[in-house]
C-alpha cells in the first residue's frame, strides 16, 4: 500500500517539477510567462503524437520538448521583441495552447499511447520496497532531479547564471554593463518552454499514456504557483512539487476510504497544504526579497 502510494506520488510530482523548474529560470531572468499551462498542453499533444508516430516514447518526449519551446518562442517574440504586456500575453498563450492542442490532437483522442518504460536493474529493482521506488522509475524521474541540480548549480555557481540573475534584478544596469538583456531572456523563456513541454509530454507518455483534450488540467498553474511559493529556489520547488503530489494522492486514497468529508474539501487540500508549507519555509522576508527577481514582469526597452 505505502509503496503504491509513493510510486504514484512520484509520477504525479514529476511533470510539476519539470514545468516549475523551467518557469523558475525564465522568472529569474525577469520574464513572467503565465503561459505555462499552454506550453505544457502543447508538449502533451506533441509528445503523444511523436511517440505513437515513431513508436519511441523517448522520441515523443523530445517532440514534446520542442513543441513547448516553439510555443514559448511565440511568447518571447511578442513580449521581448514587440514589448507587449507579459501578463496579457501569457494568458493568451495559455488559451492559444489549449485551443491549438485540441485541434492537433483531435485524431488522437481514444488512441492507445506508448508508455515510457521504467528502469529495471536486475537485483536492485527487485529489492523489497526501496527497489521499485529508487531503481524502478522511468528515465524522466531521474532526469527531473538532474535538472533541478543542474539549474541550481547554473544559477548560483556559474557566471552565466550570475548574469541571468543580474538581468532579473536590474536589467538597466545589466544593459549598461554590456550584457544582452533581450538575448538572455529569449534563452531563458525558451528553456522554460522546453521544460514545460517536457512536463506536458510526461503526462501523455508516462503518467497516463493517452491524449485527452485539456489533459494538463491546471497543472501549469500549479507549477507557476510553486515557483513563487518556492521563492525562486530550485530545491524548494522540488519540495513543493512533491508535497503537492503527495497530498493529491493522499486525498484520493482518503476519498476511497470514505472519510466523511465532501470530496471538494479534500480536493482543495493539496493546494492548501502546499501554500501553507511553502509560506512557512519562506518566512524570512529579507531572504525572500533577495531571491525575488526585482524586474519580474517589467518590460525592457534599451536607450537609443
Amino acid at each position, binding site marked *: 500500500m505505502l509503496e503504491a502510494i509513493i510510486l504514484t506520488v512520484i509520477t504525479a510530482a514529476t511533470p510539476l517539477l519539470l514545468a516549475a523548474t523551467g518557469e523558475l529560470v525564465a522568472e529569474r531572468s525577469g520574464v513572467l510567462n503565465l503561459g505555462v499551462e499552454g506550453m505544457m498542453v502543447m508538449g502533451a499533444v506533441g509528445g503523444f503524437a511523436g511517440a505513437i508516430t515513431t513508436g519511441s516514447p523517448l522520441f515523443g518526449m523530445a517532440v514534446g520538448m520542442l513543441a513547448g519551446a516553439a510555443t514559448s518562442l511565440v511568447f518571447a517574440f511578442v513580449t521581448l521583441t514587440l514589448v507587449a504586456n507579459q501578463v496579457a500575453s501569457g494568458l493568451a498563450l495559455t488559451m492559444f495552447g489549449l485551443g491549438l492542442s485540441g485541434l492537433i490532437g483531435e485524431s488522437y483522442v481514444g488512441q492507445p499511447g506508448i508508455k515510457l518504460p521504467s528502469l529495471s536493474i536486475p537485483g536492485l529493482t527487485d529489492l523489497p520496497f526501496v527497489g521499485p521506488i529508487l531503481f524502478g522509475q522511468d528515465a524522466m524521474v531521474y532526469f527531473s532531479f538532474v535538472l533541478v541540480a543542474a539549474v541550481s548549480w547554473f544559477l548560483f*555557481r*556559474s*557566471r552565466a547564471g*550570475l*548574469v541571468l*540573475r*543580474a538581468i532579473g*534584478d*536590474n536589467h*538597466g*544596469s*545589466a544593459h*549598461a*554593463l*554590456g*550584457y544582452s538583456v533581450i538575448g538572455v531572456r529569449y534563452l531563458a523563456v525558451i528553456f522554460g518552454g522546453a521544460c514545460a513541454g517536457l512536463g506536458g509530454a510526461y503526462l501523455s507518455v508516462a503518467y497516463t499514456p493517452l491524449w485527452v483534450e485539456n489533459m494538463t488540467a491546471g497543472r501549469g498553474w500549479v507549477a507557476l504557483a510553486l515557483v513563487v511559493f518556492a521563492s525562486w529556489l530550485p530545491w524548494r520547488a522540488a519540495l513543493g512539487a512533491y508535497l503537492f503530489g503527495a497530498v493529491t494522492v493522499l486525498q484520493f486514497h482518503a476519498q476511497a476510504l470514505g472519510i466523511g468529508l465532501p470530496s471538494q474539501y479534500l480536493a482543495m487540500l493539496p493546494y492548501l497544504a502546499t501554500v501553507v508549507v511553502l509560506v512557512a519555509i519562506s518566512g524570512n*522576508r*529579507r531572504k*525572500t*526579497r*533577495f*531571491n*525575488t527577481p*526585482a524586474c519580474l514582469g517589467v518590460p525592457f526597452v534599451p*536607450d*537609443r
Partner: protein
Amino acid sequence: MTGMPGGDVTTTMSEGPKRRPAATGEMLLEARHVVKRFGDNVANDDVSLRLAPGEIHALLGENGAGKSTLVKILYGALQPNAGEIVWKGAPVVIESPAAARKLGIGMVFQHFSLFDALTVAENIALASPKGVSMAELSASIERVSAEYGLPLKADDRVADLPVGIRQRVEIVRCLLQSPDLIIMDEPTSVLTPQEADQLFITLRRLASEGCAILYISHRLEEVRELCDRATVMRRGRIVAETDPATETVASLARLMVGTEIAEVHRSLSDRGPPRLALVGLTLPSNDAFGVSLHDVDLEVCAGEIIAIAGVAGNGQGELFDAISGEKPAATDGAVIIDGHPVGYTGVNGRRRLGAAFVPEERLGHGAVPGMPLSDNVVLTRHSTKDGLVARGLMRFARASEIVGLITDRFDVRKGVADPEARALSGGNLQKFVVGREVDRVPGVLVVSQPTWGVDAGAAAVIRQSLIDLARAGSAVLVISQDLDEIFEIADRIAVISRGYLSAAEPAAAMTRERIGLLMAGGAEKRGEG
C-alpha cells in the same frame, strides 16, 4: 565560476596599469566636434573636450545642458551623430560600455547601477573579465578597497549597505579594471561631508598615479577645491574652459546659467505657535529593505522653515509617507496638524486641515504622467476648499484657471496651454508640482527635495516661494539632501540617520561638520538612550 589560470585582477593594481600609458604631453582623451541629436533636439552641438592624464577635470552645466549625453558617448552607451573621439592619440569608436572598459574608461554612476540582491563580489564579478574565480576576486576586492581607504566586505549584500558604501562598491569595481580615466557623476550627492573628504583623498591619490578623473557635480565649492580644470556646458555647447581655482562660486554659476541668478532673499523668522508636530512617531518598515522610524519628535512652527538633512535612504521617504498620511501612524497623536491629532487620518483628511505635500518623485507620485496639468490640479486639491468639485462633478474651468495662476507665478514653460504632465521637462514639472501646493497657501507644507534636478534659476524661484510662504505664517518642512539649499532657506535644521531624527537646531548655530557627524549616526544615541 570556472577557475581558469590567471588572476590578472589580483596583480594589476599593485603593478600598475598594463595598458600603454599616454605619451608625455599627449592628451589622454579628446572629443572633437561631437554632435548628438535626439529628434529635433541637439543635445551636444559641436562639443570638444580635452583630458590630460592625471588631471581632475570638472564638467559643469545645468540639467539638460548636455553633460550626461556627452558622458554617455564617452562611456559607449550612446553613439555620436558626428565628430570623433581620440584616445591616447588614436581615433576610436566606443561601441559599448564593455568596449569603453576595455580601453580603460570606467564610470561611477549616480544611481541605479548596482544589483541590490547580489553580493559585493557578485556585483564586481559582473563587470570583471571572465575566468577569475570568486575567491580570488573577493580577496582582491578586500585588498584594493582597503589600500585606497574605501574598505569593503566581499560577501555583504548590496541591499544591506548604506548608500555611501554602495558608492564605494562602484568605485572599487572601477578601480579593479585599473582604468586610465574614471568618470564620476555627482559622486558626493550621496555622501556626508566627512565621507566626501575621504573620497577626495582617494581621488587625489588616483590622479597622482596618473589616472584622469572627469568629475560631474553641481557643487561648485567642491569643484573649486578638487578640480584642476573645468569645462562648462550650456544648452548643448561648450561655453568655457577655465581653472576653477581662479573662479568664484558665483562666477562659475554665472557661466553655467548664462545670466545672473536672483539671490534668495530671506527675512528674519518670527516664530509663531507650532502647526505641525510629530510626537514619538515610530513606524516599523514593512519593506525588508526599508528603514524604520524610531521615536521621531519634531515641532514645526508658524513662520519658520525646518529642513531635514540626511543622506538618501535614511528614512526620508518613510518620514514623508508618515507625515502625509500615506502610511498611518501607530497612535493618532503621533502626528498633529494645527492641534488636531491626525495619526489615523488619510491624506485627504490632512489636506482638509490645511496641509499640503510635495513628494520627492514628481512624475508618478507627485503627478500622473498621462494626465493634463488641470486634472493633476484636481487630484491633490479636490477635497479642499478650492471649488474644484461641485456636486460630485469636476469644474474644469476652475482647474484651468489654477493652472494659469501657477504657470504665471512660477514661470512653468510648456508648449500648449494644458499639456500632459509627462510632456514637461523635469525642472518645469517640479515648478508646477511645488506651485500647485504653494498656490493653496497651506498652513503646513511638507516638501521633499524641492529643487532636485532643477536649474539654478528655477531653484531660486522655488526656494523664494517657500520662504515667502513661511513668512506669511505657514509652517514649512523641507526634506533635502542638498546642504547648500538647506543653509540657504532653513531657520532650523534636523538630521535624519537610519530612521532617527536629531533635535532641530537653529541654522545659524549649525556647521557642515556637525551635520556630517549627525548624518553618520550621532542622533541614534539619543534614540537608544
